[in-house]
C-alpha cells in the first residue's frame, strides 16, 4: 500500500523500536485485562468450595493438549523471528504459517470442547463457575483469532521480504497469548 510511513515509526526515543514499544505497551494493558478476569476468578474460586463440582466437568486432557499446541506454536513463532533476524523472509513466513496452523488447531479443539460441554447443559448461564470459564477462555480465544489474522498479514509481507521487523512484533504478542493460557490451564482444568 502506498502510505507514507508515519514519522513516529522511524523514531526511537526510548531506544526501543517504536513498533516493539507499542506491542509492549499493548501487552501492559492486556496484563490488567486478563489479570482482572483471572484474579477475580481465583478469588471467587477460593471463596466457593462448591465450584469444585462444576470444575470437575472440565476435560484436563483437552486442556493439556491445547497447552501443547500453544507451546509448540510459540516455538515456531520464535523460530520465525530467528529466521527474520537473518533476513530470510520466506523461511520466517513458513514458520508463521505453522504458527497459524497451531492457532487453527487450538480453535478447532476448543470448538469441539465447548460443543460437548454446551450439549451436556453447561452454558455461560449455568452458574458463576461456567460464566468465568466461558468468559476467560472466550476472551483468550478472541486473542488467538486476532493474532492468527494479523500473523497472516505479517507472513504475506515477510514472504516478499518486506517489514521483517514485524515478525518479532507479532511473535511477542503471540507468546503473551501463550502465557495467558499457561495460567488459564491450571486455573480451569487442574484445580478441581
Amino acid at each position: 500500500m502506498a502510505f507514507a510511513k508515519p514519522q513516529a515509526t522511524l523514531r526511537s526515543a526510548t531506544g526501543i523500536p517504536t513498533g516493539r514499544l507499542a506491542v509492549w505497551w499493548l501487552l501492559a494493558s492486556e496484563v490488567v485485562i486478563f489479570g482482572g478476569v483471572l484474579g477475580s476468578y481465583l478469588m471467587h474460586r477460593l471463596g466457593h468450595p462448591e465450584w469444585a463440582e462444576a470444575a470437575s466437568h472440565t476435560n484436563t486432557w483437552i486442556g493439556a493438549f491445547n497447552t501443547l499446541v500453544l507451546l509448540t506454536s510459540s516455538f515456531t513463532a520464535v523460530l520465525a523471528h530467528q529466521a527474520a533476524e537473518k533476513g530470510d523472509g520466506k523461511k520466517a513466513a513458513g514458520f508463521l504459517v505453522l504458527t497459524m496452523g497451531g492457532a487453527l488447531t487450538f480453535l478447532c479443539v476448543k470448538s469441539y470442547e465447548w460443543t460437548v460441554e454446551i450439549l451436556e447443559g453447561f452454558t455461560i448461564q449455568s452458574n458463576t463457575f461456567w460464566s468465568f470459564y466461558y468468559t476467560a477462555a472466550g476472551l483468550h480465544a478472541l486473542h488467538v483469532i486476532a493474532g492468527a489474522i494479523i500473523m497472516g498479514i505479517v507472513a504475506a509481507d515477510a514472504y516478499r521480504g518486506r517489514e521483517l521487523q514485524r515478525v518479532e512484533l507479532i511473535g511477542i504478542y503471540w507468546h503473551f497469548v501463550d502465557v495467558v493460557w499457561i495460567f488459564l490451564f491450571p486455573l480451569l482444568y487442574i484445580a478441581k
Partner: protein
Amino acid sequence: MAEHHDEHGQHDAHDVNYKKIYFTLLGLLVVSVVGPFFGILWVTLVTAFGIAVVKATLVIQNFMHLRWEKRIMKWVLTTSVVLMALFMAGVSADVLNHEGNNWENIAAQAAVERGLAAMAGEVVVVEEEVEPVEAGFNPPSTFNLVCGSCHGAAGDGTGAAGLALNPRPANFTDPAFWATRDMARIVNVITNGAASVGGSPLMVGWSASFTPEQIQELADYVATFRPGA
C-alpha cells in the same frame, strides 16, 4: 541474568537454544498434568501453579526476549502486574469472605450452601430442599440491605441506586401510593416482581431468596411507612 545492551535498540541474534527451552516447557507441562493425580494439596499447588509461573517466565524471558529488553519496558510491565496485585489485595477481603463484623453476603452464603448440599446429594442421601437463608433476617435490616438501595432506607423512593430509574421506585410515604395498593398486591410484587402487575421489570421478584413468611414480614414492614400507620 546477564544483560546485554546494544546501541541500536535492535536485537542481535540471541544466545538462546530455543529447542532446549521448548523441550523444557514440554517436560514441565507433563509434570503439571501428572502432579495433581497424587491428590496431595501442596503437590497440586506446586506442580500446577508453581510450574505455570516457571513456564511463563521461560517464555517471557527467552521467547519474548524480555531479558534483553530496555529496562523501561520491564518497569512498565512490572507496574501493570503490581496494579493487578493491588486490585486483588484491595477486594480480596470482601470476595473471599462471606461475612464480616458489620456485613453479610447473603447471596454468596446461600450459593455455597446450595452448592455443597447438591454435591452431598450426589453421594449421600438426597437432602431436603435447601432452605433460603434464615440467618440475619430481620425486616428493617433486610429492607435496608435489599430494598433500600432503590426505595431508600426511609421508604421514600430516594435510594441512591434508584435516582436515575424511570419509572421511579415507589415512594411508600406517599398517600397516593397507598390509595391504589393493598397488602395482597405488595406481597405479590415482592414475590413475583413488579412486572407481574405491569410495573417496572427492574423491581424483580424475591421468591427465590425469601420464604413466604419472610416476604409477609417485609410487606408488613413496608406498610409501616404508610402515612398515619
